[in-house]
């Protein structure tokens, strides 16, 4: 409708003339990408790994070399010699110990079942998870190079391989999460102040005496932000891709399409917050609180959703980042197509509708 267009245009003027909005739009996402990205990235690279090689063969040395050549593991600073992993770990201050028992080479050559020992320092939870993921990833790579083509039987296993799926291959695992969380926070923050600002400055009173409906006002306000948040998404994705050299195997356009839905959902959260609180300050705090904590803790960014208690699994379903995280991981790392990701996009659309309807209801109630 025409009125929506004019509200959108007016909103765009507000954005472009407000230094604070511009900073939230352009500076914050880039800053957060660097900050989050590096903080998390640094933590999980260069993990000190000690090795007990009881096989002492070409194959076992090749495996060790493969581990150390990766960016993820390096030998302990003070090499010591123990046969017991526990002792070795404490003496060398390593985060993990790889034990290669005798018979490894033979097992690789003959495709026999074999178990390698991986002892992990569990006190650093996220690092421990990364060690497991990297080690199994590196081992798989190593084995694949040696398997005759067409063979699928994995002969050698890591004894500690319990959690986590093949997604967890590298630090790239975290980047999609960072992208999802930053986009959600920035988007919600942007719209959270729109209605609150009109309440703050008193302009809402004049606006409400004009013949426009709450729906028209809210959608008109949403529209320019969809464009802006979409560009933000490109910015964050681009930055993350360049900075952390994440692979991108899937369809760019599919990711863009889902990103559009995702930012619209995030912006709806902001709009909803905006109708609930009286001041801009409160709106911003509320928007951050509502988006950051659940996204970091419950989206599967750090903790796998399937390991959560049932109640929290339920909560994670209303966290938009849960869905977008899967989409970004799927598209960037696995090259998943539309068929696989359609349910996620669908859930995001449903969430957006719910948030928007709640916002319109709240807004209408306020006028009465």
């Amino acid at each position, binding site marked *: 409708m*025409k*009125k929506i267009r004019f509200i959108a245009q007016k909103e765009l003027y507000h954005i472009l003339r407000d230094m604070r909005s511009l900073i939230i739009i352009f500076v914050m996402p880039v800053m957060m990408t660097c900050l989050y990205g590096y903080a998390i990235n640094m933590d999980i690279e260069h993990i000190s790994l000690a090795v007990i090689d009881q096989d002492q063969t070409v194959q076992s040395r090749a495996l060790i070399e493969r581990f150390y050549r990766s960016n993820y593991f390096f030998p302990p600073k003070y090499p010591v010699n123990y046969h017991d992993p526990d002792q070795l770990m404490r003496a060398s201050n390593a985060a993990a110990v790889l034990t290669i028992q005798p018979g490894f080479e033979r097992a690789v050559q003959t495709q026999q079942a074999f178990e390698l020992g991986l002892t992990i320092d569990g006190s650093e939870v996220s690092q421990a998870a990364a060690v497991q993921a990297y080690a199994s990833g590196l081992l798989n790579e190593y084995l694949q190079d040696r398997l005759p083509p067409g063979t699928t039987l994995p002969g050698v296993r890591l004894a500690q391989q319990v959690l986590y799926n093949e997604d967890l291959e590298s630090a790239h695992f975290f980047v999609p999460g960072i992208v999802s969380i930053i986009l959600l926070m920035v988007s919600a923050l942007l719209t959270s102040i729109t209605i609150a600002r009109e309440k703050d400055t*008193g302009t809402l009173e004049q606006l409400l005496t004009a013949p426009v409906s709450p729906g028209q006002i809210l959608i008109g306000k949403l529209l320019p932000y969809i464009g802006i948040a979409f560009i933000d998404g490109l910015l964050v994705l681009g930055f993350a891709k360049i900075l952390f050299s994440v692979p991108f195997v899937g369809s760019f356009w599919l990711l863009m399409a889902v990103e559009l839905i995702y930012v619209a959902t995030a912006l709806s959260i902001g709009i909803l917050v905006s109708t609930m609180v009286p001041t801009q300050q409160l709106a911003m705090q509320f928007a951050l609180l509502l988006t950051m904590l659940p996204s970091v803790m419950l989206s599967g960014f750090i903790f796998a959703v399937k390991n959560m208690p049932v109640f929290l699994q339920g909560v994670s379903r209303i966290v938009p980042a849960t869905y977008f995280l899967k989409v970004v991981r799927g598209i960037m790392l696995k090259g998943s197509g539309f068929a696989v990701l359609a349910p996620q996009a669908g859930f995001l659309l449903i969430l957006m509708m719910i948030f928007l309807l709640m916002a319109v209801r709240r807004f209408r109630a306020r006028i009465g």
Partner: protein
Amino acid sequence: MNGNAVEISGLTRKFGDFTAVDHLTLSVARGEIFGFLGANGAGKTTAIRMLCGLLLPTSGQGSVDGHDILKESEKIKKTIGYMSQKFALYRDLTARENLDFYGHLYNLGNSTLKARINELAEQLSLTPFIDRLAGALPMGWRQRLALGVSIIHRPSIVFLDEPTAGVDPVFRRTFWGLLYEMAEQGTTIFVTTHYMDEAEYCGRISIMHNGQLIELGTPHDLVAKYGAKNLEDMFIDLIRPAGASNEEN
């Protein structure tokens, strides 16, 4: 259009235990300049907000321009103009952009709107300021702009809540000149004010006190009725016995 511009009976609004407007009954004829007087906190603004569809009454009924205030607020919004006590326009938009925005919300076409903005800028002496940000305008010009926005769509009734608060006497004179012109063309003007000299300009005035309407009539009749020297003395005499604050502004 038939009937009165404003017709209300028993209009009441409570906020918790506090009754802001208490059984207000009055009617305003078309083309009338109706002065709505009362001390601060007397309930004027609450009453106006109910008439403009910004607030629902707790009880009572009324119509504005023939439309029911309870059920037809969407229709009312199309025919009224409203100027808030507090400056309620976008400070980060220019005067022209504010006028343009509201013009479009009232469904004015581009060419009509352009002509109307030029006309208003001329009438309100806003032309030199038209492309300045509203937030950067001097007080008096902000009020002119706010009036301009409230009449951009040539409403049949305008509600002006303290339109001249904080502006200089010269401009107040001009402002009232404009209101007279509009009234002559058939616009109903419903205005609240603190200035008794302004109240003299009104066709009829009503006086509200503690949420209730305590007096209604032409300025001349009221002064005569109370044997007061002028409207100001009458007003103060009328308000004081009930123990209300006499503080102006």
